[in-house]
């Protein structure tokens, strides 16, 4: 049987080593082609190494948490078919003798060996744990096993009976706020719905019991993941920077209306969802075209300010593993559709764990969105060594003074700016923020490609 070597893949040009996070398979396991063998992470991204072929995992050579150079053999896989000898993407000067060149001195008929650098799969969001059936315990909680796991889209027999008795469509039931496990719509929820005359008043059911489950520890220790450690280090660096913040409200009426009118077409025509981010990017680039604001698009390094005359916009993305800030490069050169696609693609890659090292680092200014959580606004923290960061809050109708007098409802957005006060003073920062606001409020949308 041929033996293939599974090697640590190179995740981007500047990566020289990576760490094994977890083996998904154990020695002796049968694996299918494309199945993930292990998860690993580099300084910049997490990824999975897939099996190159059907076979049996013969030997696992590197333990979890071990950091090994790119090209290191991680495991041996016994395969039915021979895996073509792919040259490993090791460092330019391999110090080990080239495998297979010299026949081994001893041993019966040599097994053909193939080197294999596995394809890399984007890491799926970690909500669903890897399928590894835990050893069954005698008192396994049945309810939890049977609990709905698909956002409560499971209706109990009682719920279905209630719905049928009262002639409520199941679609309506599925839309109710569920108070059961995993958001399941319980029979009580349906009864409350019926009692309320068929209106789905949100219902918060209070429980008076300890948070810790019976027999479970009251505390647990969570060692920081590599990503959290990186976030922690970065924010500690940020906290050392003398930074100040300011904020202002932006009237988003025109952009909101335009976006509403065009987002369907964007999805159909370009396969991309049209968020507010591209408009913010446009406004930021527009403001930075004015040399008076250039020092907000800069990196503070040593005793120098590196002022960039290009815009690499970092975009903070919330992922199941934690916050990542991939970078859209040179957005000042992009057309609108390209920008929309780039924003959409970057977000999707970030959330699915598909970021590559080339997506990371080198930002000149970062954009972060507080609004997704429902927050009206917030004070962003600088992403060092960048000199400024812009935060945006929820875009929602708020009572506002109308230009012609009186009070009306406007979709307002609170825009905040934090800046490295060593690099810029408050007035300069405020003028930049005001320029971004003006660009958003006054943007001529008529000639945007759609």
């Amino acid at each position, binding site marked *: 049987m041929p033996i293939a070597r599974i090697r640590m893949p190179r995740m981007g040009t500047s990566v020289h080593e990576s760490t094994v996070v977890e083996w998904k398979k154990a020695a002796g396991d049968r694996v299918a082609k494309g199945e993930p063998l292990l998860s690993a992470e580099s300084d910049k991204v997490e990824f999975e190494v897939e099996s190159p072929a059907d076979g049996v995992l013969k030997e696992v050579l590197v333990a979890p948490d071990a950091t090994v150079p790119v090209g290191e053999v991680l495991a041996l896989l016994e395969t039915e078919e021979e895996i073509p000898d792919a040259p490993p993407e090791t460092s330019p000067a391999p110090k080990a003798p080239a495998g297979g060149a010299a026949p081994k001195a001893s041993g019966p008929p040599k097994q053909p060996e193939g080197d294999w650098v596995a394809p890399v799969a984007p890491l799926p969001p970690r909500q669903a744990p890897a399928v590894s059936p835990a050893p069954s315990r005698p008192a396994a909680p049945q309810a939890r096993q049977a609990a709905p796991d698909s956002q409560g889209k499971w209706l109990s027999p009682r719920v279905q009976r209630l719905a049928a008795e009262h002639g409520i469509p199941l679609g309506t039931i599925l839309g109710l706020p569920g108070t059961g496990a995993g958001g*399941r719509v319980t029979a009580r929820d349906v009864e409350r719905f019926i009692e309320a005359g068929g209106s789905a008043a949100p219902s918060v059911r209070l429980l008076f019991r300890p948070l810790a*489950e019976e027999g479970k520890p009251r505390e647990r220790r969570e060692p920081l993941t590599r990503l959290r450690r990186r976030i922690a280090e970065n924010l500690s660096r940020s906290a050392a920077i003398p930074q100040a913040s300011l904020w202002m409200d932006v009237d988003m009426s025109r952009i909101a209306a335009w976006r509403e009118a065009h987002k369907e077409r964007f999805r159909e025509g370009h396969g991309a969802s049209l968020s507010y981010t591209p408009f913010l990017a446009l406004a930021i680039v527009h403001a930075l075209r004015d040399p008076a604001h250039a020092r907000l698009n800069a990196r503070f390094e040593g005793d120098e300010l590196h002022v960039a005359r290009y815009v690499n916009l970092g975009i903070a993305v919330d992922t199941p593993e934690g916050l990542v800030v991939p970078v859209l490069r040179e957005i000042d050169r992009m057309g609108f559709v390209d920008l929309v696609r780039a924003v959409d693609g970057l977000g999707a890659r970030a959330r699915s764990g598909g970021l590559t090292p080339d997506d990371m680092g080198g930002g000149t200014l970062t954009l972060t969105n507080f609004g997704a959580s429902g927050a009206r606004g917030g004070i962003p923290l600088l992403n060092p060594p960048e000199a400024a960061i812009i935060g945006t809050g929820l875009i929602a109708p708020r009572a506002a003074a109308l230009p012609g007098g009186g009070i009306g409802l406007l979709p307002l957005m609170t825009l905040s700016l934090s800046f490295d006060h060593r690099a810029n003073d408050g007035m300069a920062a405020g003028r930049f923020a005001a320029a971004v606001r003006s660009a958003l409020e006054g943007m001529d949308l008529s000639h945007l490609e759609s």
Partner: protein
Amino acid sequence: MSLITYREALSAALWEEMERDERVFLVGEDIGLGGGAFYITKGFQQHFGRDRVVDAPLSEAGFTGAAIGAALAGMRPVVEYQFADFVTEAFKMIVDFAAGNHYRRMGPVPIVLRLPSAALVSGGPYHSVNPESWFFGTPGLKIVAPATAYDAKGMLKQAIRDDNPVIFMEYKKFYNYRPADLPPQLQIDVPEGDYTVPFGQARTLREGEDLTLLTFGTSVLEALEAAQVLEREGVSAEVIDLRTLVPMDKEAILRSVKKTGKLLILHEARKRGGVGGEIAALIAEEVFEHLDAPIRRVGAPDCPVPLSPPLEKAYLPGTAQVVGALRELAAF
């Protein structure tokens, strides 16, 4: 009306029935001079004589068979086993001749088999059994499980007057409880005179809306404690004491499950092969469309009752375990 102990209630039932009906006689090991392993019949032999309070040799099969013969001849024997565990010696007598006879011979076997059941403190594997599942599948036997002094007296009288063989599980754990130490739901006045408790009627120990906790025997204690914990957490649990396993009060069970939609069955006996499984099946067959959560069971694990006190404590379904199961059910 008075509050008496479970032990006193049993003694009173036997005494009154023996006075009431001369066909009633007692047989068992050391029940005469010794008054029985748990002194239920203390003083009986002095009063009723050796013909009606019979000290049997150490042979459960022998004295059970003799009692069945007497029952067939028109007597109403009450057989005491020192511990329910020892009934296995008399198995053939009970399942073939007591339970089966009515079907073959067209004649009833009015016999009561008193089985001191369940764990006490460190009784170990030979003195702690909950015997119901040994008999539950045998037609012809009635099986009762009184959990209060009131039931102990009324159901023992009912058992003696019943024309069928009755497996009378009595709980050693309850013998010594002073009424005042019991939860209020179990402090039921015991009438001094004659009364019987009809079989097949469950008792709702506590009304509830959110879930049903079905139990019997010693587990009523854990059930009531757990329900109280849940009440503080905003969950209202209905606690039902089955009292009789055969015949079972199907109506009461189904009514409660239809009300709450969630069911936990609790018994001290092992979960596997326990009566709880039969009840769960009944619910699934008859009121499935009323269920809002999977039926849960809490029972002992698959091993003999351990002798070591800490292991015994871990083995027996405790309040914490019931609370945990109820919480999960409530949160489902």
